[in-house]
């Protein structure tokens, strides 16, 4: 669809490698995420535990694989939902006439008036540990960005002679969207989606870090960070793992977003 730059391929490669690590870990690890071995706590990486064990003797490799998988699932779901909703509402707002636009404007301004993280925290506090609520809350915050960009770009396209001409020739709305609007908005939507993916991961990790996100004993990157935090001097390699992966995922998504934005 689009020609990608070298840096974007690097970003995609990092994400793919992390995905392979996650799926492989979940499929082939002989341990489960909650299987404790108190005889072997905070072990450094070895042949039995490739990434060592945490303070309960749980396999870090297994837990990291699950945590990365969870982050991916959430970020992709949020990305998909918010871009779809944001794009659809953005186009509808321009196309649906003044009333729709005004109504959408009110909703969006209310959402924008609240800091994004606060909204998510609010939802997360109502139902702690629910993946579904986290997903809904993050998507609710993120679609606004897509809406605003898509609406601004679409306004120009709707007025353009090219679309007017297609309409006069009898082409339907789906065609006009496909040929005129989508080519104009798709680069922006893809860029926003890449940033949105990174933001979703960060938001989920932040919530985990303040204990309102995914609850123990599930493995989640933010939660693991805060759990392993007390042992930073005894076993720094353990704390480094979730932090490194968060940084890597965000970095890869930003690389994927490309330079123009």
């Amino acid at each position, binding site marked *: 669809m689009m020609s990608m730059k070298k840096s974007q391929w690097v970003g995609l490669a990092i994400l793919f490698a992390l995905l392979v690590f996650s799926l492989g870990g979940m499929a082939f690890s002989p341990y489960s995420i909650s299987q404790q071995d108190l005889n072997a706590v905070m072990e450094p990486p070895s042949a039995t535990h490739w990434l060592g064990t945490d303070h309960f003797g749980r396999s870090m490799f297994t837990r990291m694989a699950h945590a990365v998988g969870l982050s991916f699932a959430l970020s992709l779901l949020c990305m998909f939902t918010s871009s779809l909703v944001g794009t659809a509402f953005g186009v509808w707002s321009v196309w649906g006439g003044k009333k729709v636009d005004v109504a959408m404007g009110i909703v969006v301004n209310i959402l924008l008036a609240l800091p994004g993280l606060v909204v998510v925290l609010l939802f997360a506090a109502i139902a702690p540990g629910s993946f579904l609520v986290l997903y809904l809350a993050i998507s609710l915050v993120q679609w606004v960005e897509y809406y605003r960009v898509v609406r601004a770009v679409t306004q120009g396209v709707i007025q*353009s*002679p*090219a679309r*007017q*001409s*297609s309409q*006069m*020739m*009898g*082409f339907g709305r789906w*065609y006009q969207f496909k*040929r*005129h609007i*989508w*080519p104009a908005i798709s680069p922006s939507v893809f860029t926003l989606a890449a940033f949105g993916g990174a933001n979703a991961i960060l938001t989920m990790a932040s919530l985990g870090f303040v204990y309102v996100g995914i609850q123990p004993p599930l493995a989640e990157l933010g939660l693991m960070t805060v759990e392993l935090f007390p042992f930073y001097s005894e076993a720094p390699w353990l704390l480094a793992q979730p932090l490194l992966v968060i940084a890597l995922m965000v970095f890869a998504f930003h690389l994927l977003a490309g330079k123009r934005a």
Partner: protein
Amino acid sequence: MSVLLKLTNVAVYVDDTCLLEPISLALKQGEPLTILGQTGSGKSLLAQAIMGLLPDGLTVSGEIETFGKVMTLEERQALWGREMVMLPQEPWHSLDPLMKGVDQVKEVYRFVRGNSPEKALAMAEEDLAQVGLAGNGHKRPDELSGGMAQRLAITAATAGGAHVILADEPTKGLDVSRRDGIVRLLQTRAKMGCLLTITHDVEVARQLGGLLLVMKEGRLVEKGEAASILDFPQDAYTQELIAAEPSAWSDITAPIRQANAKDLIVANELVLERGGRVLFDRLSFTIKQGEVVGIVGDSGCGKSSLGDALLGLLSISSGSIVRSDSTAKPFQWLKLYQDPPSAFSSSVSLGQLLDDLVALHRIDESRIPPLMAKLKLPAGILERNCLSVSGGELQRFAILRALLLDPVFLFADEPTSRLDPITAKEVTQLLVELATEANCAVLLVSHDPDLIQRTCHQVIAL
């Protein structure tokens, strides 16, 4: 008469390709020199070479002699503003959009000529009064009409007192009446020094007089006194250029207008307001089937709005528009746009756009090749997208697309104003000919009364 500017074998190259073949000319005081040719004929390159404004990557050979001496690029650039000036092609690109008009002229007097602020302002106001902008000095460029903005730009550019004036397409995009005003202004400026004008408009060349050079594809084809060349052109290309002027067209109004043609559109007491301004008041007219109707008027008088209203794209303030042909479907009322590239999606090839249309309306594909042949469209055009074909080809492609739908009414909104005269003539003729063949009524908008006169059965003057 002293020679202010002399070129000896000046040529422009990119790498080893010659863009402008060696040319020699002399510009004398008080004698205007005009270069005539189509877009892409290398006219602008010559002006840029003289000024020393050529883009990187282009090299110039030969000698450019200014005021009697051969100068280097840096020496010529030092003359900018005071001795040598190039007038802007489109004023919008050269004026400061946020600065009052009078200040733009004042700054030249103040900083280029070194006058005191009060004196500079007085001189600027006097200059503006001379070009008929006395009451408009406080306006920003976007509040001025095209002709006024061009006069302002010329005043600002020449305020530095330059003797050598290079004007690159100074009348591009202006109405006929405004164009003549700019030409007269240029002539008064030229009396003090010398003037080199670059244009594709034969009429401008005729009015300026003096010496004339005709160029084609970077090559000089004819040179001599303007009056004699334009009246007795020797070269085939010059003849073609002159023949492409609407005033020189033979009457191409389609003869076969059936007297018993039915009414297509009846407009009664039409009133249209836009932005609080009444564009036209109580306009009534009838358009018959297969008739070519022209609308003339200066820019901003509502020509395009009238067409849009007939197509239902704009709502009218009062009056009525009755479309008598009840069998015609909505997609048989179509529009041709002024700027061809903006009327197509650049995301897919032209062939894909055509296929979309064929699939939507189940058009018989065997109709396409003969129509393409009539419109002189090469088959290869279908593999490219709208940004990589020429404006003329694209406008013909737009006609092709419209004709495939068997339109009953076609609103052509200045379809040739962005095209070269030769291409414009070709496109207009094809449009009128093919539309008449298909018994499709055409509403042709133009700011050139000659063009309308030659092509239309009925003229609506706004």
